[in-house]
């Protein structure tokens, strides 16, 4: 099958090709000698297909190579702008287009509370930028859809308003406000914003393990994988991971089960809590609502919880987390997490790794992945964490009336946090997920689709263990 169909967009496909070629050379220990050939491999010939000329295309590929190799180490942000790839999209805000017919009704003028609309001698509308506050009301009422919002897709995607335009007219990320969710990475139509990759770290861990004899390399995969690699079976992805050289594969959902047990106890003890699973949400609270920080659950995320547990069982273990999330890459660098998780990859990067070794997962036998319960698995979608905490309370016979507020996307999170800060929130548990839909909406997913939530629920129901306590009961004897 064609590679492009494995992804939502051609931007992802381009990013993937660079990652794949970097990985291919890294496996062969020839990256440093041959990395300068990659731009020619990806942009051969003389006819440009993406930009003004092949030379610019190759220059941008060279920038992608840097990011594929870990990016700018002086920049703490996982998300970086590739300046020369930014097409400097129009960013003028609301504008009247030539679809304006100069009508009589002037609904736009009537609806504008700021008096920003005026009309020329042809009765055509104009917006006074000094008065406009970009509320968008005029665009909504125009019967000809003649008023458009010329906002850059990156700025539109960034709901925490961390992207501005710098003096050279390129996008610029404010590291203080950025939550590293990767929404801009996925939304930029020119692929000018990219997440740093740690594929080289993962490849090195596998190579240095010498077939898992020096140390064992464990892969922990996020439950959202059930909605990914739709062209193959999940079991084939698991076998593919073993072919890549991982010793064994564990479900992050088992870590989620462990979190559900602890988080429900913590909630009952404290009376109010916000979840700590989504690193972008946690970062958002710390940056914007410092007064609410004491309410953030003290639990590590499912990824870090399971990784920590693994290393307690096998002190030489190396752990690679594979998921849909760019913010997890940042989480893995936190002081409280870095000793547990050695590298974080996205599903996009996993696809590149498979193909860098010419592993066609559709031809592989199906392996198995089954440790967690239904509840651990549904953490991957909005609302799942709340369900799991409710179940945790029930299974442990805790006396507590849960009133969960599942927040789907960072804007919903913000609304709940504002209310909590004012003490008018009707609820005692905020489930915060920065991405719309939850983790299945993550920027590192190969594909995003309507059916992904149903896929996660189906995967949840397939779990051998039906309760959280059964899933975690095995772990006590491990230590």
């Amino acid at each position, binding site marked *: 099958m064609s590679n492009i169909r494995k992804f939502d967009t051609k931007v992802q496909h381009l990013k993937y090709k660079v990652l794949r070629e970097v990985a291919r050379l890294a496996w062969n220990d020839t990256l440093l000698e041959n990395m300068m050939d990659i731009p020619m491999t990806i942009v051969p010939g003389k006819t440009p297909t993406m930009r003004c000329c092949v030379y610019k295309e190759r220059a941008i590929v060279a920038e992608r190579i840097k990011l594929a190799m870990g990016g700018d180490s002086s920049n703490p942000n996982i998300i970086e702008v590739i300046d020369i790839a930014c097409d400097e999209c129009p960013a003028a805000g609301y504008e009247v287009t030539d679809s304006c017919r100069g009508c009589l009704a002037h609904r736009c003028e009537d609806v504008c509370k700021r008096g920003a609309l005026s009309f020329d001698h042809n009765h055509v509308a104009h917006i006074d930028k000094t008065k406009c506050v970009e509320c968008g009301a005029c665009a909504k009422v125009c019967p000809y859809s003649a008023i458009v919002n010329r906002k850059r897709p990156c700025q539109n995607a960034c709901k925490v308003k961390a992207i501005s335009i710098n003096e050279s007219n390129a996008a610029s990320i404010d590291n203080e406000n950025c939550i590293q969710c990767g929404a801009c990475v996925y939304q930029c139509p020119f692929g000018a914003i990219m997440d740093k990759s740690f594929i080289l770290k993962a490849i090195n861990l596998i190579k240095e393990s010498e077939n898992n004899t020096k140390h064992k390399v464990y892969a922990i995969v996020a439950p959202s994988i059930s909605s990914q690699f739709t062209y193959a079976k999940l079991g084939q992805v698991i076998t593919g991971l073993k072919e890549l050289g991982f010793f064994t594969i*564990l479900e992050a959902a088992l870590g989620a089960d462990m979190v559900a047990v602890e988080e429900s106890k913590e909630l009952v003890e404290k009376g109010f809590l916000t979840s700590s699973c989504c690193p972008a949400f946690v970062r958002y609270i710390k940056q914007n609502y410092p007064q609410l920080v004491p309410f953030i659950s003290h639990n590590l995320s499912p990824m870090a919880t399971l990784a920590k547990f693994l290393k307690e069982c096998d002190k030489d273990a190396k752990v690679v987390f594979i998921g849909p999330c760019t913010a997890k890459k940042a989480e893995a660098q936190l002081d409280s997490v870095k000793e547990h998780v050695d590298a974080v990859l996205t599903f996009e990067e996993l696809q590149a790794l498979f193909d860098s070794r010419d592993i066609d997962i559709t031809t592989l036998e199906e392996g198995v*992945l089954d*440790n967690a319960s239904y509840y651990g698995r549904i953490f991957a979608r909005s609302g799942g964490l709340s369900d799991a905490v409710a179940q945790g309370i029930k299974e442990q016979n805790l006396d507590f009336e849960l009133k969960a507020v599942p927040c789907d996307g960072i804007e919903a999170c913000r609304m709940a946090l504002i209310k909590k800060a004012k003490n008018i929130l009707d609820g005692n548990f905020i489930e915060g997920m920065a991405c719309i839909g939850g983790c299945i909406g993550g920027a590192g997913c190969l594909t995003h689709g309507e059916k992904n939530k149903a896929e996660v629920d189906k995967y949840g129901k397939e779990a051998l263990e039906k309760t959280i306590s059964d899933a975690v*009961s095995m772990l006590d*004897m491990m230590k």
Partner: protein
Amino acid sequence: MKIVVCIGSSCHIKGSRQVVEKLQRLIAEKNLGDKIELGGTFCMGQCQKGVCVTVDEEFCSVTPDTVEEFFETKVLAAL
């Protein structure tokens, strides 16, 4: 004596939880708690032979139905 049971995905599906529960019961019945240490691991690299169990490093293939027999021949006999 140390008995290690694999609880990785493949063995888990083949019933490692039942194997562990039965072993725990047998150990308790025979009052061998101070002589036998029961542990777990996430993979022994022999998934086809699961449920994978080791008794002081010796590899054994066990199923929920053969736990009693395994306990007689490999555990009690070796104590």
